[in-house]
């Protein structure tokens, strides 16, 4: 652990967990997204003509987040997540000394994904653009990926593991704006290449864990 990290006492850390898991649970109830197919053109809101290169990721600015759940709903709708399943994105609430921060979270498309390493079926792969995707026809549903992911991201439906794929399997071109980031009107959730995100917000902090997530907080 780095020494520069301010000490948190155990009780406040535990309070944070409690709050985080509470929000994760309530997010499912909150969402009313419909599961029916939607005719959306590929070009909606994408960065036009952007030839794609680099590794993609998310930048989240919790102080801008109002917990409006628009990103979660947009994700549910586009990826047709059924109502009885958790969405691929969730808003976690972190609380310390009465101050609350909301963080929109989904797969962090890690540089060294532990989910991919432990998947016995080889169903998880990392595309050239850095997006970590699951092959639903290969997944056997052993749930080892959930145990291995430091963020507990993988979820399961009746067919296979389900998690954020940056909307690419739904038809969004690699590197183009996914629905959740597009839906955020308050500048709390940004998508782009790691270079773009860091250029936009040089002070952003990366999450320190062994899998090297492509996820920044500012």
């Amino acid at each position: 652990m780095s020494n520069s990290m301010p000490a948190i006492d155990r009780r406040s850390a535990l309070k944070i967990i409690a709050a985080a898991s509470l929000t994760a649970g309530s997010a499912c109830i909150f969402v009313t997204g419909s599961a029916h197919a939607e005719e959306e053109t590929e070009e909606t809101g994408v960065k036009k003509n952007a030839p794609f290169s680099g590794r993609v990721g998310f930048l989240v600015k919790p102080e801008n987040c109002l917990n409006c759940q628009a990103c979660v709903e947009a994700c549910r709708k586009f990826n047709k997540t059924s109502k009885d399943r958790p969405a691929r994105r969730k808003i976690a609430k972190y609380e310390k000394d009465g101050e609350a921060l909301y963080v929109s979270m989904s797969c962090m498309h890690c540089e060294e994904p532990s989910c991919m390493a432990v998947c016995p079926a080889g169903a998880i792969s990392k595309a050239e653009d850095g997006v970590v995707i699951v092959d639903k026809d290969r997944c056997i549903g052993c749930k080892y990926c959930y145990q291995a992911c430091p963020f507990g991201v993988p979820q399961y439906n009746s067919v296979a593991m389900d998690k954020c794929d940056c909307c690419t399997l739904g038809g969004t071109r690699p590197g183009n704006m996914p629905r959740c980031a597009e839906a955020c009107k308050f500048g709390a959730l940004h998508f782009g290449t790691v270079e773009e995100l860091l250029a936009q917000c040089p002070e952003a902090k990366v999450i320190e864990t062994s899998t090297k997530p492509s996820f920044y907080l500012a």
Partner: protein
Amino acid sequence: MEGLQNVWGWQPALYLFLGGVGAGAFIAAMVAYFKNGQKKSSTVFASVCAAAVCLVVGLLLLLSELITPARGLMMWQSFSNFSSWMTIGAWVVFAAVIVFVLEALCLWDRAVAFVSKGNSSFGEAVPAMARVLGIVGCVLAFCVAAYTGILLMSAPGVPLWNTILLPCLFTVSALDTGIALVEVITFVNRKKEGMGEATVLLLNRGVVALVVVELVVLAALLISMAMAPAGESHTAAVAAQSAALIFQGELAPWFWILVVALGLAVPLVASFVTLRASGEKPHIVGLAGAMGALIGGCALRFIIMLAGLHADPVIDTIVQLMG
């Protein structure tokens, strides 16, 4: 059971237990076999069969927990990524089952008589085969025992599991529950056949040594978790939380009664009693110790599984942001 690990249910916990018992029982049976000068023994034969059954049932449980068990059965595809311990383990268990079954056949008079009917040279080769299979089987069994812990160890998100102490604990527990299973079989088979005084002595000494080692490893695991500097990172806080669940929280009654009292103390005392009253015929006290060890070993897998809480590394960054 809120606030406990619940993504993996009872099947994986039982799989880890059965994998361990099966592996341990094979090793214990082979110790008895070699110690007794490789004499034919219905107890050894039954123990090897029981070991194979444990592994097969374990594999079936693992399959039943999958979302698509039918796809899981196509092992060449579903267990094809060898960077995964689940893949390596599944194949090692599979190989162990085959070797255990072959060993059982070598130790089974009727099978040997049937195969060597028209071919007497085959019959002569059987003891050598039994020896080789016994040794290969022991190596595989040891790998299976260690793997049951390594499977959990390779989950970086779960601090209680993500330590080398876990495979150590599960391996020791596998050996000691394996001996227990052989003891139970010996007891059931006592009218037909005794175990041989030297073997009884050896296995009971083994139990004493293993229980002591298990106590040390278990204490090291839980104390290292409980003493993790909870203020420094959320991972450490969750490690401490997992240990607290086991020591004094929701899982504590199960831990102290089933794991510590029944699973460790009872077998230890029983082995001392048996060692003093040593003889060919197994004692009822030995049976009690063995049953305690089996229950304790099973409870241990469930408790470790349930207490495997996920850490959230995002919290540490949030704490930095909040200043």
